[in-house]
């Protein structure tokens, strides 16, 4: 097993909380590096969208959620999935087309999701998850389940009709929903400057009567604090919140990206704002841990990912024989 128990609360609330936030961010980083490596070695099929540099956003957001709270995710969804508590072995196994993979090898990188930890699905369609999150939030309200639903999406998704229609529904029905935009400055090659005529994406919420806030998406503490406020609003029946987390995608959009639309200098500048050392500094300042303990956590994340890869590689490949039967859920008697 390569899961780690979830912990809810402020990343600096205790040593355990700090350990959790750091471990999770490092798990995401090491996972993504492993994916890149598997790809490079020709062991993985298809494409990949890495979230290296964005680890603080899902980690901070999910530390404000209960296990039963739900998320919808995106094509760049490995981090969301891990932050919500998924098992790394089953994630890698999915990428390798194994039977024990989360989707039985049918979904791959863009569809990995652990439904047991509240992940309603990654999505190959930009914006596709936002109305679905609104619907899950509607169900929460109708069924009085108390669940909060977070939709993760990118800056680019904000220009899809799906965002606009879902935001309005969430607003008028006061749904227990958080619209969480990871503004990593590009939708593929389109910078936010080119794709938007407003300077601050959070202003989009104004038109729907939804409160919104900007947050440093590379600061897990800041993300958690805003996430907590938004989750409280949702739980109190006050409706949705838009959080715009300012972050950056270090790697190319996918495997075929030549990075022609941005400069090396810009990428370098953002690499200096690495969310992991940023949090390490805060931990040291808070005196919750010593450097040696921090090093041990980083090594632990690496070990967990290596163990997951080793286990997944050995697992049985998915077989085509069950495909036809997999299309529909059986009607129960």
């Amino acid at each position, binding site marked *: 097993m390569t899961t780690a128990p979830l912990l809810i609360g402020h990343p600096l609330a205790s040593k355990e909380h700090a350990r959790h936030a750091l471990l999770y961010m490092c798990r995401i980083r090491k996972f993504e590096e492993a994916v890149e490596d598997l790809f490079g070695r020709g062991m993985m099929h298809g494409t990949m969208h890495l979230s290296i540099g964005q680890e603080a956003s899902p980690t901070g957001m999910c530390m404000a959620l209960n296990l039963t709270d739900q998320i919808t995710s995106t094509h760049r969804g490995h981090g969301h999935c891990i932050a919500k508590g998924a098992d790394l072995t089953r994630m890698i196994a999915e990428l390798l087309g194994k039977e024990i993979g989360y989707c039985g090898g049918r979904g791959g990188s863009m569809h990995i999701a652990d439904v047991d930890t509240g992940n309603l699905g990654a999505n190959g369609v930009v914006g596709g998850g936002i109305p679905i999150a609104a619907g899950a939030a509607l169900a929460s309200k109708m069924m009085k389940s108390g669940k909060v639903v977070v939709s993760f999406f990118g800056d680019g998704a904000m220009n899809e009709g799906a965002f606009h229609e879902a935001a309005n529904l969430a607003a008028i029905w006061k749904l227990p929903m958080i619209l969480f935009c990871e503004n990593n400055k590009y939708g593929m090659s389109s910078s936010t400057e080119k794709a938007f005529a407003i300077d601050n994406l959070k202003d989009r919420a104004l038109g729907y009567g939804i409160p919104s806030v900007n947050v440093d998406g590379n600061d897990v503490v800041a993300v958690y604090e805003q996430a907590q406020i938004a989750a409280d609003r949702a739980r109190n029946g006050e409706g949705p919140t838009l959080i715009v987390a300012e972050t950056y995608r270090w790697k190319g959009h996918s495997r075929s990206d030549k990075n022609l639309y941005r400069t090396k200098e810009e990428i370098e500048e953002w690499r200096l704002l690495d969310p992991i050392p940023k949090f390490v500094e805060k931990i040291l300042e808070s005196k919750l841990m010593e450097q040696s303990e921090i090093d041990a956590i980083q090594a632990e994340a690496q070990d967990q990912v290596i163990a997951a890869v080793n286990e997944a590689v050995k697992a049985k490949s998915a077989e085509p024989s069950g*495909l036809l039967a997999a299309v529909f859920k059986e009607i129960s008697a």
Partner: protein
Amino acid sequence: MSDRMLTMAEAVREAMSIAFDERPEVFLLGEDVGIYGGAFGVSADMYHRYGAERVLDTPIAELGIVGAAVGAALAGMRPIVEIQFSDFTAQAMDQIANQAAKIHFMLGGALHVPMVLRTPQGSGTGAAAQHSQNLEPWFASVPGLKVVVPSNPADAKGLLLSAIDDPNPVIFLEHKLLYKIPGRDSVPVGSGRIPLGVAKVVREGKDLTIVATGIMVNKSWEVCEKLAAEGISITLIDPRTISPLDMQPVYESVEKTGRLLVVQEGPSHAGFINEVIAQMAGSSSFGSLIAPIKRLAGMNIPIPYAPQLEKAAVPQIEDIEIAARDIVKNWR
């Protein structure tokens, strides 16, 4: 300059460039078609050659993009809109099916929509269910749309030029596995057109007629070569445009061979290729058949991710080979 071997991506780019040079009202719009050169590199350097005003990068907003193309088209421009994956035409379907396809008819002919929507489709890249579909029956079932499914670079070039000339909306479906491989035949230089609505007899034989679309033409070709060595000779027909559909060569061929195998990549249920079977069944050539019509198509499932699953979901060369040999051997 003489004819050369090009890939489908190069041939499509060449056709777009010729159209750009011929007519100032032609322009390209779509997600990442500019500096990035398109998700599959089809527009490549066109942004540098023609500038940002004619090679328009758009936000991620398929409904808006296609709607803008429809509006620009009926107002006098000739847009080529690229949708990054054909799967995302779903977002734009109102503008495609309810607007573009119907405007000329509904408005009594007062307006028309000279727009081309180019989009990659098909499986084989491990991109899974939402990035691998063959949606040609969606478009082929909407009167008012012309639908082109090129199988090779030379056809893609000539057909795209005709599509851009056409005063009606044309959906141009490019198989993404064909983008990077050169065709069997060289691509003519110059601006020669291939008319829409004319099927191509790719090769002629006497034992079996195969009608295949898109990438299945290429797979079927391999089978024709292989079975020729076994003494089985096959006629291979590529409809090239599926709306309108040219059945005449199919009838003529079946009258000679008496056997028909149809092949498409998309799911069999309600697939386009069924239209070929239906028209055959209603034709006077039907009586020439000495064997039941055989259909090979994708499984009725979403395209799975893992390579071993993805392969199982769509017809492979071996499947076509077995079907072709069986029908010839079993029906004499």
